[in-house]
């Protein structure tokens, strides 16, 4: 697969994944762009992989986690205004949207590695072993992240009673 083909066919999906990871479309764009600039230099190898997007997704994941380490902050600072700029939807007023937004707020509050594991499981539908490979850790560590994330989500105020 050529880089041009990859950008056209696969990068939109990776941008969506990066947005779930960062909860910030601007940061997602920056991370994906940084990763692709690096991938561009060794595209001969990456483009020959089957499929290359798994490798690039791994690069995105670790760029995000290492970026957070470098900046030493603990929470993703999601700017509501910037999210609104990228949000094409209009509030539909249904209960389903309310609950989804509440869950989103809770997910944003999770520590980055827990949220990363959660996104890889529930957005990318990966197994523990695949998540471990992507996050460069052991499957047991992945299970720990998922368990703590789900426990946090479970112990928070039941959805529907916070408004």
């Amino acid at each position: 697969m050529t880089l041009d083909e990859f950008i056209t066919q696969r990068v939109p999906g990776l941008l969506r994944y990066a947005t779930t990871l960062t909860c910030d479309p601007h940061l997602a764009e920056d991370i994906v762009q940084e990763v692709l600039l690096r991938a561009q230099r060794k595209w001969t190898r990456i483009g020959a992989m089957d499929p290359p997007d798994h490798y690039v997704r791994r690069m995105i994941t670790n760029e995000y986690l290492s970026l957070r380490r470098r900046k030493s902050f603990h929470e993703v600072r999601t700017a509501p205004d910037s999210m609104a700029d990228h949000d094409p939807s209009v509030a539909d007023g249904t209960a389903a949207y309310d609950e989804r937004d509440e869950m989103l707020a809770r997910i944003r509050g999770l520590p980055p590695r827990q949220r990363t594991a959660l996104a890889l499981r529930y957005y990318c539908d990966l197994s523990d072993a695949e998540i471990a490979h992507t996050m460069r850790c052991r499957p047991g560590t992945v299970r720990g992240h998922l368990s703590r994330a789900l426990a946090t989500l479970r112990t928070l105020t039941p959805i529907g009673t916070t408004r």
Partner: protein
Amino acid sequence: MSDTTEDLIKAAFQRLADQAPDVRGIEADLRAAEAPARGQWVRWGGLAVAAAAAVTAITVPSVLTGRGPSDTPAASGTAAEPNPATVRPATPVREPGLAIPYRPEWLPDGFVEVGRSGGGAQSPWARSWTVNPAQSPSPGAPTLGFRHSPLPPDTEQGEVIDVNGVQGRLIERATSSGPNRYAEVTWTQSGELVVMSLSGVNDAKAAVLRIARSVKPDPVAAVPTEVLSFGWLPEGMVSDLTQVTGDRPDNYTLLRTATLVGDEGITAMLSPDAPAWSDGPTIKRTEVPVTVRGLPGTSFSVSGAPPSASGVVVRLSDRRWLYVFGGPDKDIIRVTNELRIAPLAPMAWIGKR
């Protein structure tokens, strides 16, 4: 965890994903950066090579002079004597290396050439220009790229334009630095499909069209593939990309890669810059003294990074640093020892129009 809660988690992630930015902004920035400008960090598996020091002054640049309107001989009928400093040799001498066939005669004010590459899988040749290359690059900085195009233009995008009687296609896009600040033209130049992309300037469309229409054969330019070349390589590995970036003729970084399809490759890099390591809490680096090319060097390996994050670093007698990394650990010393490295020579084209 109930199904309902799991469904809500999935729905929440879908909602987030729906807010993802459009790919076109990234695509435009990537194309603009396809031939990277001087100052871009080369980071790889925890190794960061930062601009830190310049090599000492070296011998006088030869042959090439600037390539601007001032190079044009005086029009016939004028009495002006040509300035000897701006007269080209009667028979241009091709630089050694992989020939680059074309160059633009016209460039916006301030643009100078900062990068050339050749032999890569995506494009057999590429060259790039920017302004103020000695300054740290900033997002959205003016950048011009010119390269062979591996793919024909998307006929469903952009507008049909004319480049000196040949039909081409122009695409204009917004970038993160603003609207109308990226434009690219794809056309056929002397039978070869080429693409010229310009970003970081206002009205990029008009400027890139003017640049494209000024393209002429280049009898001189080449990618300096002879400066650094592999001697021995592991079986199946083939030398491919050569890339040089710099801001002055005597201050450049040259990179050469060899790859085995489907596997990590080996990269050899000559740089005036000393190594700068960027370790994180989960990245562990170990260093072992080694002798390579008869000089004291360092073998390093990085854990918490891709498996091939290991290699050697050695300072050569001409004060350049040589980095070789990737590939099987057992082979890296032999690859380094058998690299062919030409004496330090200026690249007269760097920093010129």
